[in-house]
């Protein structure tokens, strides 16, 4: 029992480790901002399942990148973008999208497993792609992660209003001339980038904890177009940075810490949101009756 505990939480030499891993913490913060922000649209556009599908193909790309020496990062980005494009082009309706995702997912996973099986290198590197890394983030890795997340955030800010319009109210948006189809594809590409970035930290199987859970939690406690994205970013950031800080001295990957914090935030928001909703409904009824 005690043994398990020291595997999970070990804060000896914490200061030295912190200095060593400050790149990981920065990476977590950057990813938290981008992931929390894009998560809001993943929720509104009902793309949670598609995110999972993209991440499996991104995993396949990363594994192929490892095997053929193209590079894990490059491979995962290529895989993500390909999956995002396929889902975006073929699945404009939710039902089509779900079946395409369901078809792509096992294919990607299988392809990835094949590439890893053929790869002669270390087993922990292979495992990390699926369930997250323990390794420190190096300077070049942090650089590309920041660049990818930067593209995601800037892209979302530019598209923000028409993308919100198209996501929330597609029919009226189309009547107003909002390029609904273009936005849908552009969003999928940004989503592909965000997935590829997330995979490097939490692994392909746990991407949803960054791209869905924080936004889902935020939507439980707010409907404000300003607060939902801000809260979602804060939740993703706390989950990632908190998870990395807790995992520093441990000998297990960071992902279980990240997913647990992210889940706990969501659970608290569900409880808080339930109380808020009861109050709201009551208030709304009163307001209408008074009018």
């Amino acid at each position, binding site marked *: 029992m005690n043994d398990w505990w020291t595997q999970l939480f070990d804060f000896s030499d914490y200061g030295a480790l912190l200095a060593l891993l400050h790149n990981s913490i920065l990476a977590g913060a950057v990813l938290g901002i981008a992931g929390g922000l894009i998560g809001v649209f993943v929720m509104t556009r009902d793309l949670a399942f598609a995110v999972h599908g993209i991440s499996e193909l991104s995993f396949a790309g990363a594994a192929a990148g490892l095997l053929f020496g193209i590079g894990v990062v490059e491979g995962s980005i290529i895989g993500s973008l390909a999956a995002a494009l396929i889902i975006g082009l073929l699945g404009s309706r939710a039902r089509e999208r779900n079946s395409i995702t369901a078809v792509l997912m096992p294919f990607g996973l299988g392809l990835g497993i094949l590439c890893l099986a053929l790869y002669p290198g270390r087993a922990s590197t292979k495992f990390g792609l699926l369930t997250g890394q323990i390794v420190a983030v190096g300077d070049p890795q942090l650089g590309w992660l920041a660049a990818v997340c930067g593209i995601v955030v800037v892209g979302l800010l530019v598209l923000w209003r028409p993308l*919100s319009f198209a996501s929330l*109210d597609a029919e*009226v948006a189309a009547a107003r001339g909002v390029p609904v189809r273009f936005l849908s594809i552009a969003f999928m590409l940004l989503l592909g980038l965000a997935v590829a970035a997330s995979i490097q930290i939490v692994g392909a199987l746990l991407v949803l904890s960054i791209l869905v859970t924080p936004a889902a939690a935020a939507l439980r406690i707010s409907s404000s177009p300003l607060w939902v994205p801000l809260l979602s970013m804060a939740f993703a950031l706390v989950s990632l940075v908190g998870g990395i800080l807790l995992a520093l001295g441990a000998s297990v990957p960071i992902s279980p810490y990240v997913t647990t914090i992210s889940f706990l935030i969501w659970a608290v928001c569900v409880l808080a949101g339930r109380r808020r909703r009861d109050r709201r409904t009551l208030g709304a009824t009163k307001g209408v009756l008074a009018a």
Partner: protein
Amino acid sequence: MSEPVLSVRDAELRLGGRTLWSGLDLDVAPGEFVAVLGANGSGKTSLLKTVLGQHPLAAGEIRFAGEPVRRGDRRIGYIPQQRGQDPAMRIRGRDLVRLGVDGERWGPGWPSRARRERVDSLLDAVGASHYARVPVSLLSGGEQQRLRVGQALAGDPLLMLCDEPLGSLDLRAQRVVSELIDRHRRERGFGVLFVTHDVNPVLGMVDRVLYLAGGTFRIGPPDEVLTSAVLSELYQADIDVIRSHGRVVIVGAPDHSHHEHEHPVGGA
């Protein structure tokens, strides 16, 4: 008579190899209220889509404000049917209206006083101010459609396209929403093209009726179009139009839904 805001000339629409209507001529004057009636599949909604520039015509021409129609003209307002499962249900009323104010512009749209005041005045104009901060999903169908009217007014429209805006509303809400649209078209002078399967809620407001059936159509004041003789000719079948207590009941039209809401008749 002033220049028509919408002018349809010898227009033909084909969808999936089928001609929905052809030879359509229609002028909508500023401030005029035109109801579009007809069976399901007669091309009522498609007419609105062509005006929005989303469907090309097979022949003929549609001009809006003197120019050929194009996509995304802010001066055309659009009010869709209220639907319970839209993602728009999750946002607050004022945010729905705000989408109409600047939703099509690029960039994040940082909060500003000017925009807030614009949204407030639109909410006020449709009597939705007191529930503007409540999520749309918690509102009644009638309250939701008021917000839709506010959203559509945001572009200062010259023409308002309404696609079954009263669908799935109860009778009282139908009256409130149609009176709201009627009041604003009088005050602001925009033309209205109002697609509906039931003319009764707007019977006292419409200037003219466009009745589409069997690839052809008839336009005129409701008293002239909604008669047994005219509709029997349109449908090539025996149709009875019964007027009772100021309401119109159409009996015998194929897959019609013109019946009274209180007494639904089968065979739709």
